[in-house]
């Protein structure tokens, strides 16, 4: 199953990269969100997806708890970054009046 999930994560990365390369600011932000999912799945997978019980003491043979703790931290941080970039995109649009990244370029001679 590890191979399958890794390939899935690879598909997510591909789509995320494609979105990050687009001209629209919304697509870029969605790309980062998808990239975050891919990262979480990879962290989960590289530790192994062996069968076991949830990491609760007394439930038998629990799965590895450490990657879960790492992902939990990462989810929260990812959310914070997404929130800030969303508000930034909103404010940019308010001030500049465009959501096209190409138009946000400075003077060519700067």
């Amino acid at each position, binding site marked *: *199953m*590890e*191979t*399958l*999930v*890794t*390939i899935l*994560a690879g*598909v*997510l*990365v*591909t*789509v*995320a*990269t*494609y*979105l990050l*390369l*687009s*001209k*629209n600011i*919304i*697509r870029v932000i*969605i790309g980062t969100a*998808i990239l975050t*999912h*891919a990262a*979480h*799945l*990879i962290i989960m*997978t*590289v530790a*192994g997806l*062996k069968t076991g*019980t949830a*990491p*609760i*003491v007394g439930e038998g043979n*629990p*799965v590895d*708890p*450490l990657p879960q*703790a790492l992902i*939990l*931290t990462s*989810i*929260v941080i990812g*959310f*914070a970054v*997404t*929130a*800030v970039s*969303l*508000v930034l995109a909103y404010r940019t*649009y308010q*001030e500049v009046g465009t*959501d096209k*990244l190409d138009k946000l*370029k*400075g003077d060519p001679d700067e």
Partner: protein
Amino acid sequence: MTLLHWAVLSPFIAAIFIPFLYKYLKRIHTGWFVLIVPLVLFIYLLSFIPRTSSGEVILNTLNWVPSLGINFDVYLDGLSLLFTLLITGIGALVVLYSIYYLSKQKEKLNNFYVYLLMFMGAMLGVVLSDNLIVIYVFWEVTSIASSLLISYWYTREKSIYGAQKSMYITVFGGLSMLGGFSLLYVIAGTFSIRELIANADLVMASSLFIPAMILVLLGAFTKSAQFPFHIWLPDAMEAPTPVSAYLHSATMVKAGIYLVARLTGVFGGAPEWFWIITSAGLITLTWGSISAVRQKDLKGILAYSTVSQLGLIMSLLGAGSAAFYFQDGDNALYMTAILAAVFHLINHATFKGSLFMAAGIIDHETGTRDVRKLGGLMTIMPVTATISLIGLASMAGLPPFNGFLSKELFLTGMLNVTEYGIFNLETFGIIIPIIAWIASVLTFLYCILMFYRTFMGKLDMSKLSVKHVHEAPVGMLISPIILAALVIVFGLFPNLLAYSIIEPAMAAIAPGILSPGEFFDVHISHWHGFSAELFMTIGIIVLGLILFMTFKKWENSAFYRGERDVLNSAYDWGYEGLIKGSQSLTRLQMTGRLRDYFIYMCTFIILILAYTMYRFSLPSIQSLDLSPVPIYMWIIMLVFVGSVLIVPFINNRVALIITTGVSGFIVALLFVLFRAPDLALTQLLIESVSVILFMLVFYHLPNLKKVKTPSKTKAIKLIVSIGFGLMITLGSLSTFSMGQNTGYDSISEFYTENAKEEAGGYNIVNVILVDFRGMDTMLEILVLSMAALAVVSLIRLRFKGSEDI
């Protein structure tokens, strides 16, 4: 700190006081205060002559950075003494001259004298240091001071151009030299020149010998204006004339000569050293004399003649370095070259100094330095004319002036080269005296041309901007008269210098050649019979005169009219090209588009990962302990992939948000299946909040438009994304397989076993988050708070006049 240390530092200390003296004692020309410094130093240094001429050397140590072997050790022997006397002696004369040359009212004298003193101190430091790093430090200070002095009239564009050019070239050389010094340290483990000379065999045997030598020589050649690095010197003539006389004829340009002479003990004896220095010197000599003939500006002629004379001295040092090959035996053969080098060094400083000062006087009194506008000054300025005549005759090598003697010695030294019988000289050696002879003819020609065009004929007042032309004030004439007198004195009584200055200097250039207690027997005489040198000199005069007589014929030829050195165009072209090239490179690469930068990053990550995997044949997924795949997993996967893959094709924003939300919720579902209840919970919550946030923000943003992307761009995007996805997949698989094959157990055992005992909790993930690894959580809370603050300030804060932002 000994008195000699203070002597090196005294000009710097004096420089501190100059601005105050300039500001508060306005009635007295600041130069008078400055004059004290070189004068006192000169007298103090004269007192060392008896000690150095008896073969004694003075070495005083002062620790600077002893842990790195960098010490400010002053070392005074014959060679250093010769240079210090030149620096302080001519320095004093130049300061005296500048007092009359620079107006008290019009010029910013404080700047001038601070730079000049800075230069003087640095130059003393270069010639008195025994440590290579200290030499380098002072060396760069001379470059900086020289540039400051060239750009003294900084409102003129040409001054700035000249200063920049000299700075670039000499600093380039200086940095190469530092590299060479570092290599010498790598070879011999010391920065001390004395110890390097003592370990010369070690240096010679090293494989780094050639690189170290070339790097050091780059420094020496750029500073001493050797071909092709001579191009900065003619442009440095934009400096005030006292500066040209001091820096660009007598002292700074001889720093490279000093370095070559000083390091002959380390590198000498190698054929590469002999050939590089001799040929560079001869090429410079010839090129300089050819170019000097073409110049129309008095200082231009003198600049190229300086280049040519420096080449002469350099070639003599090269020829003399053969002494180290032989080590013993009949040293008269090759030591003549070193004798000629030292003697000509002194002579050049005297006559070139006086010539520059005379040119300055002509400029000062007539308002021009262009020889085409000048003429007939002989009767108007008799003293200047006499000084110039003496200087030019000496430079041309006419008896009874000192230039004659050193030119004879030069020819002897060059003729001797053919008799060495080493370094292929049997076959190529004969070229050397022939080139030397041709260059001497040209030297004679430009000397006679310069005199004829300035002082003979008639003065056409209509070409001049001044009304009356008259002789310079007495004060301005003192310095050139003293120098011209020295030209005659050294010419008539050359042996005055022989025992006191020249012999100890030769002993310092060629250490270890003499057995202890022995001295070079130098006896310079005017007449040494009907030798080859004498006939060569007669040939120089005759041919030079013929060329001068036919001057009318080639006066209008393209050769004579073109003044500018072709190498200057090469320099300008290279400089422009460098700027244009880097600009276009930057423009090509810095597009200002986020997408392009992201493509660069991805491409490099792909390439590096691909290479690494290829190199270490990864991933190896054979012996992996994979878990079984349940049937329902396939269905979830299909839905997930489907929901993600359509995201780039959606143009409706609500549909886009919902599709993105779907993939987020499937991730939560996967967490459930992977037995991570806390993750599933958090993911669900966060995904819900995110979807709401997306909705809120997108409500204010315009709808997505279907954008037509060129298929080429699309292809690049696809290739990069697929490559990146592939690399990440392969990378994670490798990580997984490596994690399995290391043979180490996961540390999670510890958490599982101790969650209850040590922390008193049942939920292991939560115990890790708040107990075992609580620091992570604390900082994550900080991240969240910062994000909240950022959101608030983004929404709330507005700068006034926001149009500008």
